[in-house]
């Protein structure tokens, strides 16, 4: 009883951390190992870099989390990032006020998300292939509107400074954006009915239908959020670099998915959350920073990265497994979690 009481009383943030303990433990272990072997890592300038570098993929991954929780996937985020970046750059070059240009760029992302939502929820095409198609198509659009060329623009304004390279309260602006987005996502997933619908749809689509969960609307919103986050990442990228490039965001989709999965969210949907994603994105950034600091050749970095992904997912899976294991339920659970034939 005491145990239960405890569980009942501990604030959910504590529980969240408890649920993601493996990611966090690896993370902390990594941080300690770094302190010993790569002291450079702890120089404030480097830490700020890591924070900054986690931001873009982090924001995309937070949006992706919503889609993956429904059991879907969004491969189109990279091209959405590019399209929103060039949209903003071109509008500003046409003399539009920064704020409005940014708003329109973000709406472009929402638009792509709605198209994805339509293909998935209404045309009922599997999310992988649906968003693969929009990925290809949107790249075409980004190239078309720019005639293929990068779009430099004047990113001297306050807002670009914040979104791009500036520091606020000693933290890099983009990292602050990442944190704000994360907090909103974490709260939305927990405190909004919409957030709970995502889990319902991803975990038990049939039960969701019977319970009257607005599946279609929820899917539309989830993909729109993913598109919005990708567009925000596009705006951040362009602000930072002072150029909107139609070729930006190349591997953002795979990196974001990796961050989400490392963070303990299952590609089958219904399990996971944004807290894990934050750590997943940070882990990827630390890994890459670390390999650079250690001077590992770029070729070998890829091999190492592949191995680390496997390891991290393995550990994240074990955490999820431990957390979800009830005695009686062993049979069913292991069927769901360990079914190798499901993506």
């Amino acid at each position, binding site marked *: 009883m005491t145990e*239960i009481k405890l*569980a*009942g009383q501990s604030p*959910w943030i504590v529980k969240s951390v408890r649920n993601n303990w493996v990611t966090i433990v690896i993370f902390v272990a990594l941080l300690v190992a770094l302190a010993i072997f790569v002291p450079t890592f702890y120089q404030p300038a480097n830490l700020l870099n890591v924070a900054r570098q986690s931001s873009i993929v982090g924001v995309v991954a937070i949006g992706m989390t919503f889609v993956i929780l429904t059991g879907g996937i969004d491969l189109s985020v990279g091209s959405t990032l590019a399209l929103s970046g060039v949209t903003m750059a071109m509008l500003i070059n046409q003399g539009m006020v920064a704020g409005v240009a940014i708003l329109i760029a973000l709406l472009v992302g929402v638009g792509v998300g709605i198209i994805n939502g339509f293909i998935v929820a209404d045309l009922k095409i599997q999310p992988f292939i649906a968003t693969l198609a929009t990925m290809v198509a949107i790249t075409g659009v980004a190239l078309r509107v720019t005639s293929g060329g990068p779009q430099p623009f004047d990113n001297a304004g306050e807002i670009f400074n914040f979104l791009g390279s500036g520091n606020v309260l000693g933290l890099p602006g983009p990292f602050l954006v990442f944190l704000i987005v994360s907090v909103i996502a974490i709260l939305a997933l*927990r*405190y*909004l*009915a919409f957030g*709970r619908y995502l*889990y*319902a749809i991803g*975990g*038990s689509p*049939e*039960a*969701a*239908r*019977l*319970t*009257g*969960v*607005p599946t279609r609307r929820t899917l539309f919103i989830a993909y729109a959020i993913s598109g919005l986050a990708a567009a925000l990442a596009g705006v951040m990228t362009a602000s930072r670099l002072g150029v909107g490039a139609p070729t930006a965001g190349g591997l953002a989709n795979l990196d974001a998915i990796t961050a989400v999965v490392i963070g303990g969210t299952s590609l089958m949907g*219904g*399990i996971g959350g944004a807290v894990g994603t934050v750590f997943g994105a940070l882990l990827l950034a630390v890994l890459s920073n670390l390999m650079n600091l250690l001077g590992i050749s770029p070729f070998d970095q890829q091999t190492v990265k592949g191995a680390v992904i496997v390891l991290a997912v393995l550990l994240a899976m074990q955490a999820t497994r431990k957390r*979800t294991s*009830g*005695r*009686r*339920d062993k*049979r*069913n*659970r292991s069927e769901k979690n360990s079914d190798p034939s499901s993506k």
Partner: protein
Amino acid sequence: MPRLEVRGLSKSFLGANALQDVSFKIMPGEVLALIGENGAGKSTLIRILSGAHRPDAGEVLIDGDKVDISGPRDAENLGIATVYQELSLFPELSVAENLVFGAFPGRGIIDWRAAKREAGEFLTSLDVEIDVTKRVRDLSIAEKQMLEIAKALYRRAQIVILDEPTAVLGGEDVDHLLALVQGLAKHGVSVIFVSHRLNEVFGLADNYVVLKDGRLTGTGPISQTNHDDLVSKMVGREFARSERAVNKTVGDVVLEVENLSVDGVLNSISLTVRAGEVLGIAGLRGAGRTELARAIYGVDPITAGVVRIKGLAVANGSPLKTIRAGLGLVPEERKTQGIFIAMSTAANIPMVKMLKRGLHTIHPAEERKLAETYKTKLSIKVTNLAAAVASLSGGNQQKVVLAKWLDAGVDVLILDEPTRGIDIGAKQEIYQLIRELCNQGLAIIVISSELPEVLALSNRILVLHHGDAVAELDGQTATEEQIMLHAVGGSRK
């Protein structure tokens, strides 16, 4: 004024009439039993009332007003709550959340503290003891069922529809549930109750409605009917109670299980089955019957004990080795565990033989011939053997599962709930088949929650309670009451 009235409801699927011109009413505080064979249209009717299907014709009135129920939300707003045959709970979410799901407390922002408190208080008020912070995944079946009902009530429903709520329950749990339903009715809630267990119907309902092939074949107060009358309305013929008919000439021991244990689930169970004999296994849900079958079969790892088939110990942990030793299992969950749902009927049948003999190639022509043979032999109703087995009805799918084992050749066959969800006609055919197999010298284990079924088929009956084998009874002399007494642990006190 009736709380709910339906007039002339009809619904057909791809030309097949699932429901034809059905009308009835239900008053506040009334418990209405909805009965009928499998496929009679009960679930279809319920799905219409809960907004999952639109009727082709007919109307629904609530408190005298015509209403349009076009989705689960509408039904909820109209005060109709449904507890489905398949549970509609979210296993990854907590009890509290499942209870309040969709009706979250708080304005836009969910107030979890309130949710937990309300959920706890609400469950207590129903006399249901479940820790609200537990995840539903970790609940027992009975707890899940209770929660499912509590969920309907939580929405202040005035009409509660229960689609076979007791099918998966046993003993005390059934009693608890029935008490709950009675309590509801006392508070003025109208209850529509679907059950295949007529005893429950007589103990609970005020009135009944019988469906057969989508048509209403009878309705009236329960006090003015009896068991046999209802059955004849359901099946349209006089019901012949299944005879206790078992093979008397049993042979040598074929299957021998010694001190089999699975951590926390089974405690040192021993049993033997002889050639030509049926061993019935009875027990309440959760007693460990399925676990026992799976442990013998070798899918779940055992912690102690040994299984011998024809004197040879079989290796645990590999179904294939058990299959090769001569064992077969007709599993509980037909659709996901028994058949290969996306494969054709013809492709399904030879699967076990292929595995058992380690065959590497397939001969489509022979496969088709084989399928034709079994189609005739087991009278499987199928139009196109090359079409996905998913298109067959439950009973026919079950025959395909049996065909797989017969084709492969088995010495011992374990059937776990072989007739669950199967209608009376097909049921009898399957009983017949089991008896024939016995006569051919197979050793058979039948696990069933339906005591008449166990009694009708078994030479001996093993009763499980909480993972212990608490009694072994003679199939010829045992009674339902005896079995129940052991199953609920009564014999131990």
